[in-house]
């Protein structure tokens, strides 16, 4: 549970905040705007109880950022966004794109870790997603957890019996994973079968009417956040797209 949940920000607002941040990040050309989004996202991350996971995720992505910096600095001329002349090396473009990448990762991680799957499903279904689709989405999200547990168990079992996973050429490495992935697939199918039975035992059926117990409710704070988000997106669009403000 994060303190964001404790603050009970409406999940729809979280989805909106994520979408708005992404829009701003992709539309703007200023490092200051990026920095503002980055700072906001960091504040949210630090306030949430999931900060350890978020920062762990960021750490994992660090090498990718370095690669982004190098590639954008040297190869930017070949990119879709190329519109300046130049010598072929531009550390500013590289730094900007790498920073943008960092902001995207931070925003996404913060969103993912502070929104529970239930909230996501609730948000999407109250935005008009049909029940069948939201149910499948919810079940898949739940399945991610079980599958990752299964994956870990199988990997432990195999490496403890001398299976080297991360050794040798790429092809060898991929081959090494076969004894992990195959049982995982079999396991997932078995689990799916048991899941159907278990759902029946909880009276699940697609036909009957179903009560929705957890319904998101918008509070004053939620509306305030929404308004702020709308203003930010509007400003960005006016400034960078229509060049008005």
């Amino acid at each position, binding site marked *: 549970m994060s303190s964001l949940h404790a603050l009970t920000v409406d999940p729809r607002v979280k989805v909106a905040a994520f979408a708005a941040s992404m829009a701003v990040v992709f539309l703007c050309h200023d490092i200051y705007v990026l920095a503002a989004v980055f700072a906001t996202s960091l504040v949210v991350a630090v306030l949430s109880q999931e900060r350890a996971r978020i920062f762990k995720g960021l750490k994992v992505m660090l090498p990718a950022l370095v690669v982004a910096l190098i590639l954008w600095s040297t190869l930017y001329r070949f990119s879709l966004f190329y519109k300046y002349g130049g010598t072929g090396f531009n550390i500013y473009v590289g730094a900007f794109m790498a920073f943008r990448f960092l902001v995207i990762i931070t925003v996404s991680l913060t969103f993912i870790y502070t929104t529970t799957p239930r909230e996501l499903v609730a948000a999407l279904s109250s935005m008009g997603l049909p029940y069948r689709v939201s149910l499948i989405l919810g079940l898949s999200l739940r399945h991610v957890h079980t599958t990752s547990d299964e994956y870990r168990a199988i990997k432990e079992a195999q490496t403890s019996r001398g299976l080297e996973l991360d050794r040798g050429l790429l092809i060898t490495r991929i081959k090494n994973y076969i004894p992990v992935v195959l049982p995982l697939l079999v396991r997932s199918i078995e689990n799916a079968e048991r899941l159907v039975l278990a759902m029946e035992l909880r*009276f699940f059926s697609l036909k009957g009417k179903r009560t929705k117990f957890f319904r998101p409710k918008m509070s004053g704070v939620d509306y305030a956040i929404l308004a702020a988000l709308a203003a930010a997106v509007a400003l960005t669009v006016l400034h960078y797209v229509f060049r008005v403000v």
Partner: protein
Amino acid sequence: MEGIQVRGLTCDYGDGPVLKNLFFSISRGEAVGIVGPSGCGKTTLAYCLTGIIPKRVKCEVEGEVLLDGESLFEKSLTEVTGKVNIVMQNYEIQIFGLTVEEDIVFGLENLGLPLEEIGKRLEWALKTFNLEKYRHYRISELSGGLKQRVVVASTVVLRPDFVVMDDPTSNLDWRGVKSLRDTVRMLKSQNRGVVILARRIKGLREVLDRVYVLEEGRLREAEVRETENTAVRTPAKRRVGGESVIEVENLWFRYLQEYVLRDVSLRINSGEVVAIMGPNGSGKTTLVKHFNGLLKPTKGSVKVLGVDVSKTTAAQMAKHVAFVFQDPDRHITCNTVWEEAVFGCRNLGLPEENAKQALASMGLLEKADRPPYSLSMGEKTRLSIASALAMNPRIFILDEPTTGQDRETLRVIRDVVWKLRDEGKTVIIVTHDSDFALEISDRVIVVYNGEVAVDSIPEDILLNEELLERYELEPPEALMGEVKVSE
């Protein structure tokens, strides 16, 4: 006629009857225990009582199960489920919510109950099952015992008249068993019937009205002897180990923020059988996973046979250290018993003859071509042990090999462990089973809240009531008064 009556029930999956002509009955407000070794047909019986057989699992059935005088087999699954519900053996699959409250509510939502009613029942369940504190917890953050309590709560909240529990004690520590006992007592007081199918009923005896033994598909009422505190059996001769093979110095470990192991230092020697004990979540498994390099210390060092585990991989360590995991269902991965047994040998380039011998010593050779899922729980554990034995390790780690095992499997495990010790090897066993630890180990290490709390010979710890109480360990039969189902 009220309650459930089982009359001449026989079940056959196609290769001989699993249940043979069973008779028994149970009324509301009663709790019945059905005890039997793994593979004796407990799950099949549980499925028959809940209509899963023959509705969802194909099986040839003779005889009948009556629910309040009407045949249960002729009702739809939903009808039966409304009256008789089940907590399955692999109960984790029954959890749908990502948090405790979501899970409790799931079935109620499906019933289409009004909002206020759902709210009321949710609060009732949280309170009754002592889950208020955990209502917003993610299921993945809960211990096995708590997860099971959530499943029971989510089942009972649907208000079935009967609750069938298939092997509910196998993953529970002593604290969990005591809490299950309270749950059964509470269900009885609400005039619900409870059927518990388990491999042992230690700690539950006092809430069970009747106990039956299910063996080779036949059921008979058990005569339960409750003797006074028996004299301690003359303990086996304890051995003192040779040179040290595992050296742990100031080990700290954390997965995320909080430390799970805190400043653990210990030495384990060759030719020694060490039992690692402590309640669920105290850090036992985390500790032993350092011994074969699956986990690396956050701080401090772990040296195994002189090798620093931080600088090597589990695959490298496999030459010397074998690990038998808790929960064989999750860790058995190959398509046949033979493939599973020989997996480690092949990776390490050892002769396949090893695997053959290992299977033979575990009594599984004639099942070599069978798929592992066709084995009983006890056989699966034996298969995992065989697969580890085949690698001829110097250090042998068994994580909860005893949970819910029948006597035969326990005996086989004991013989293997002692044989390894005689060969000068080190055996480390994580277990809740005080009787087993008392019988086979030379030394007990109690891990409590991530620290080594006591480290001594088994009698000093397991026969000391104060220590048992303080570290929430299961009292051995010698202290409890024996609960034995007569053979």
